[in-house]
């Protein structure tokens, strides 16, 4: 995972500034695009999602940018609805995963034994193929919205935990932490005043980089039939439904929703990477 890479040294000051400017531009652009998707989805006319048997299976046109499906529903509206659902689920899952990772990393700073335990659990989860754990958990919890969120939340923390744990262990050895400890500050106090401020940029970036993974995995297990039930307007459902119409030539049913998903995921990658760059250059 790319977020594990940490640039070791800061770049010279002059290029630093333009670098920061460009990062800001990218962040604002990405945020605008995402806001656009959400607002557009909220404004969708319910009529577009309605069944319209006369206008079914029409190719992309100006009236229907992404074409219509076999029930005459507008694919553009369905895709946007699906994207926002994916976004919401991804947010929820990535937030939970971040929380779990933070908890474990702080836990590992407690003592050697807890650190070993955290490392062991992390390795255990990393040793099983991701998608298998995900499907297992999702089915065990009962599928649907709950299954997907729980499954995603419980499978996306291990790599992030490793990263945070390394950071915590590093800060733990810092002089100012030693001073605080000698002054008699409690572990909780140290965690709140020394570890958390140091971890915050990592948390933000890590969260943003987890999002695209969570979204893609949500679409993946839904596509495989272990996620949302077929009546949910999720991208995974749209994609798996379109499979049976591909051989009859309705290519737009899969192409545009798939493309839209890829674009949204890329926007998040861009956002995450730009914020990381910003954090790195400022601290340098």
């Amino acid at each position: 995972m790319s977020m594990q890479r940490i640039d070791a040294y800061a770049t010279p000051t002059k290029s630093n500034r333009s670098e920061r400017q460009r990062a800001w531009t990218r962040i604002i652009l990405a945020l605008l695009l995402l806001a656009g998707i959400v607002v557009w989805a909220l404004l969708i006319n319910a009529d577009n999602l309605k069944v319209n048997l006369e206008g079914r299976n029409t190719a992309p046109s100006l009236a229907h940018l992404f074409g219509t499906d076999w029930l005459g529903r507008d694919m553009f509206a369905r895709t946007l609805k699906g994207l926002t659902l994916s976004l919401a689920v991804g947010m929820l899952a990535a937030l939970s995963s971040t929380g779990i990772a933070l908890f474990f990393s702080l836990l590992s700073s407690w003592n050697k034994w807890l650190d070993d335990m955290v490392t062991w659990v992390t390795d255990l989860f990393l040793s099983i193929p991701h998608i298998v754990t995900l499907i297992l958990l999702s089915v065990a919890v009962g599928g649907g919205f709950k299954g997907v969120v729980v499954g995603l939340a419980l499978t996306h923390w291990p790599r992030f935990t490793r990263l945070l744990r390394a950071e915590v262990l590093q800060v733990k050895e810092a002089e100012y932490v030693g001073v605080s400890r000698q002054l008699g500050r409690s572990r909780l106090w140290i965690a709140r005043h020394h570890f958390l401020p140091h971890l915050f940029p990592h948390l933000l970036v890590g969260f943003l980089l987890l999002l695209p993974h969570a979204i893609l995995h949500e679409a993946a297990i839904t596509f495989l039939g272990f996620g949302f039930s077929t009546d949910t307007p999720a991208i995974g459902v749209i994609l798996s439904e379109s499979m049976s119409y591909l051989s009859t030539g309705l290519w737009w049913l899969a192409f545009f929703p798939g493309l839209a998903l890829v674009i949204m995921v890329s926007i998040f990658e861009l956002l995450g990477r730009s914020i990381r760059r910003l954090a790195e250059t400022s601290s340098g």
Partner: protein
Amino acid sequence: MKIRIVFIFLFLSSLVMACSDENGKEFSARDVDTKSSLVLAIGGEPEDGFDPTTGWGRYGSPLFQSTLLTYDQDFTIQNDLATTYKVSDDGRKWTVTIRKDVMFSDGEALTAEDVVFTYKTAKTSGSVIDLDNLEKVEKTGDDTIHFYLKKPESTFIYLLSTIGIVPKHAYDQDYNENPIGSGPFEFVQWDKGQQLIVKENEYYYGEKPSFKNLTFLFLSEDATFAAAKSGEVDIAAVPPTYAKEDVPGMRIETWKSVDNRGIMFPFVPAGEKTKEGVAVGNDVTADKAIRQAINVGIDRQALVDGILDGYGTPAYTAADRLPWWNPDTVIEDGDMERAKDMLEDAGWIDNGNGIREKNGIQAAFTLLYPAGDQLRQSLSIAFADMIRPLGIDVKAEGKSWRDIEKLMYSHPVMMGWGSHDPLELYNLFSSNTRGIGHYNSNYYSNQTVDAYMEKALRARNEKEANQYWQKAQWDGETGFSAQGDAPWAWLVNVDHVYYVREGLHIGEQKIQPHGHGWPLTDSIAQWEWDE
């Protein structure tokens, strides 16, 4: 760089040419021996194998075995193995005499002993074959069999026409995977999940089919369509949505069916529970006005045109166009105004946000369909949208059958039926079958209907029985069709669509039952190539 691209291009194009060359050869090589052999991809691989005593062959012909009786195009009963059959005056004793010249495909003679053995085995098999009413079966001599029934049952004749006779001497545990019978074809090989290969039975007593070898491929819908396109199969069953595609060298044949889809409405108000604790009843659909208004309001033809691409017919009962169907059950539908009036008259008033209400109950329900069944999903979604202007709020939800079974007594479900045996009507609408498996999930009950169906079962011949079956649907005052109690909203009958190779004649087909594929093979003796 450029040179490399040119090379790659040349390499690719030569590859393409090589492929097409090979295909061409294969095609011509096949053409020579296709005269006597056929490849079919018609789906429906039987999970339990080919044992008629556990249900093989109940849709259409058993292929390897033959039955005592059979029914023709117009559902008139004809002799097959039997030479005569007679029902006693009290309707409880059926006597059948059989041909003496019949041999199984292993050369052994088929005798009354085998028939008795078949029915005894089927009765105790605990399978979908319901022979509960058969008290005992005996033979006299080598060619006469007596069936004693507990109660008279006119539909017993349909069992005689669907249960294939198995050989006593060759029946063992593996019979379902290695069947021997007296039907037109002999079993060769079954690769589970892949294909079934059969050859002509040289001992067959009936009209000889003009094909020596048949291969049945078990493919997914997608793969079937691809196989048809690439010319690998002679007959391919596809869902109606594929039927608008042109496939070179093949034509489309569609057959009318009673393979219906409709919405089962819980008939009683909520409150009760089954022994297993499953909730029964639904306060909204328990109101006759709601059920009838839906039946009148939906536009069935629009569903046929829009979802089946025209490959279907509007459905009004579970048995449309069969001899026991009552044509008076056809109603004027797509009439929103009349439907609205019916709801108003019954006290369902718009509560201001477009949903009707009566005594504090909103006209809203969740319609369940089996997740993964695209046709039922489409119908459910389209139905929900179609019915909303009436002021009835329907939410379509996909669930697994396991979940549906826990909810189907209290929620409307998109179901499908359609059988060549009128006993299905009894199972769907009798007070005695309430909550038995998927039968009568409505908990429907109407004494007049029960009485008619009882009379139909006790009838001495099919003609008399059919009259009572028809009255049970609608006798001018009541019945289980939409004219009467309307416990269902039947929507469509799905045409069965096949790609058939040009020049191959597969004859006229009966109205096809629920279940694609095998019913097609029961006319196999008449199939032939154009000369």
